């Protein structure tokens, strides 16, 4: 990809001291590229806002540093950083009109009144609120305020735009609309967006790359497909979409091929490279929709075999819970409709088909 814009190098951040000490970020390193829609995804309290505030300059890192285009930002105050923020609460200035809100940042840069006003019109067009320039924020709906907050942050043409859960206050329909809108704005302006959310669907739908965070650490960074199809950690596989987890012993056939031996003696062949040091008990994950069912009579040696314990019909698809024995349960989701001959009853013995590349060996 292109140049690195933001680079976090072993960034740590703690709040408080003594018994009240909270580690919000622990040795976080990540590169964010030019012109990319980068999302930080994680549960509440994992340090997303903290990392964003460090990039914006509202907090100082306890250790490590953050670089903007290769230059350390260290003590640079927020007003000297070419980085703007869309706050979760929008934080529009209530005493200024929409237009004055948008020109605020331009004025601070010393841009002439006339030019600033032209730019404000341009921004209002961009967020499709051209007629609203003379209103004050309290006369706007939540979604409109959201757009104005965007316009205000985009007006000074920052190198990076930080967005802290900007859609969380909107209702579902508006949120979907704004997701499309945000993506469009990012493509049209070519500005690097660093977006924070704890909504995995939102992250998958909008991002070029996603960083999945957990208690102050980044576990995995990758494109949405990569994160979904090839999670590296149990947490990632669990947090994004549904996953089956199976625990077994890693066995090596000596020729570089690996397999997982489950408690009941059944074996899953792997195609994934497994680092040499790994041995003993490991966890693997597989997505329910990557599994299929066949009648036991048609199952061969490569298939796991189990008993159907529950069947849940969802219309577009049906979810089966398969008991593999030894407390191992698998969820299988099969699409209904075209050519699907899948119709298995509770208690039936079935064979489970899985493509080897859908099985991921997870880090602990």
């Amino acid at each position, binding site marked *: 990809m292109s140049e690195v814009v933001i680079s976090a190098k072993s960034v740590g951040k703690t709040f408080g001291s003594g018994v009240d000490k909270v580690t919000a970020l622990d040795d976080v390193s990540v590169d964010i590229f030019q012109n990319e829609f980068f999302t930080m995804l994680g549960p509440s309290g994992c340090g997303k806002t903290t990392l964003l505030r460090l990039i914006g300059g*509202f907090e100082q890192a306890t250790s490590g540093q953050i670089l903007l285009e290769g230059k350390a930002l260290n003590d640079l105050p927020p*007003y000297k950083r070419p980085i*703007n923020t869309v706050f979760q609460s929008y*934080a*529009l200035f209530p*005493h200024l009109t929409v237009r004055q809100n948008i020109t605020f940042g331009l004025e*601070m840069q010393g841009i002439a009144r006339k030019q600033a006003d032209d730019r404000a019109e341009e921004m209002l067009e961009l967020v499709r609120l051209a007629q609203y320039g003379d209103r004050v924020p309290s006369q706007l709906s939540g979604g409109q305020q959201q757009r104005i907050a965007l316009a205000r*942050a985009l007006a000074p043409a920052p190198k990076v735009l930080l967005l802290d859960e900007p859609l969380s206050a909107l209702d579902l329909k508006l949120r979907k609309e704004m997701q499309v809108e945000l993506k469009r704005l990012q493509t049209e302006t070519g500005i690097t967006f660093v977006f924070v959310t704890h909504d995995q669907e939102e992250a998958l739908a909008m991002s070029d790359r996603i960083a999945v965070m957990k208690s102050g650490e980044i576990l995995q960074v990758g494109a949405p497909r990569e994160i979904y199809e090839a999670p590296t950690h149990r947490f990632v596989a669990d947090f994004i979409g549904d996953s089956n987890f199976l625990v077994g012993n890693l066995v090596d056939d000596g020729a570089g091929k690996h397999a997982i031996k489950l408690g009941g003696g059944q074996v899953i062949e792997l195609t994934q490279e497994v680092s040499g040091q790994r041995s003993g008990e490991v966890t693997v994950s597989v997505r329910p929709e990557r599994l299929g069912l066949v009648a036991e009579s048609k199952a061969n040696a490569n298939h796991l075999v189990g008993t159907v314990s529950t069947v849940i019909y969802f219309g577009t698809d049906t979810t089966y819970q398969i008991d593999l024995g030894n407390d191992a349960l698998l969820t299988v989701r099969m699409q209904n409709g075209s050519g699907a001959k899948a119709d298995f009853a509770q208690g039936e013995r079935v064979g489970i088909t899985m493509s080897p590349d859908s099985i991921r060996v997870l880090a602990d």
Partner: protein
Amino acid sequence: MGNIIRSKRFWLVAPAVVYIGFFMAVPLLQMAYVSMLERGDYGGVNWGVFSMDAYISFIFERDLMDNLVVNTDYLQIFARSFGLSAMTTVFALLLGFPTAFYISTQPQSRRNFLIFLVTIPFWTNILVRNYAWMLLLRNGGLIDGALNWMGIETGGLDVLYTPYAVSIGLTYTYLPFMVLPIYASLEKLDHRLVEAAFDLGADKRRAMTRVILPLAAPGIAAGCILVFIPCLGAYVTPELLGGGKFMMIANLIGSQFGAARNWPLGAGLGFVLLALVLISMMVYSFKFKSLPEESR
């Protein structure tokens, strides 16, 4: 109207309405009446004998030929009082805003304590406080002595019994009235708005002038009114710290009811003051109506 009287809520506020109506409106009307009567020769008034002398003599006096000539004595006292009150308001604002701002940036537990400290002077008798200031300000007093001790030759501070002494005393007395409303407006100011200003490139000074001050403006205006208006009516402080040489409106009114034995003039002066205050309040509310809802 019938609805209002029948409603329970009316009976809840009725005692307050009666109290305020009786004890506020009646004396006011009585004084309005007095101001339009002829003065009695030995104080008091000649009841039932109407005369607009009080209001005429505010601006004019009669010369020996019984002609009206302009007399600015009272106007000067009014102007001086307004000037001094304005000066005091400015002092109080200069001291009060930073104080309120500082308190609003402290952790919650500290804030309540600091606000408590600000209100402590209220708890002491106003006479005691003014005598204390006399001891502080007089030549050879605590301040003068300390300056001399530090090697700064004052040759006598000569502050006591000047308008400055009065203004210092009034600033001290009314400072909490400035701090509290400003603090209230700063406290509910959303800190994220300040962060947004920084984010958009405003340095500390411009975040202050472009965001914090405009949003605190209603509190500042309220503080200024709460200092300015009681200052206009100050009686004790000009009497003590001004040494009686320096008359303010309240002292003038006091003297009309006392030594000068001109009750109608005293009452009339009170009403002129009331009119001026009402006019300035109207200007204030008009000015702040033009601000957007949110920041009020």
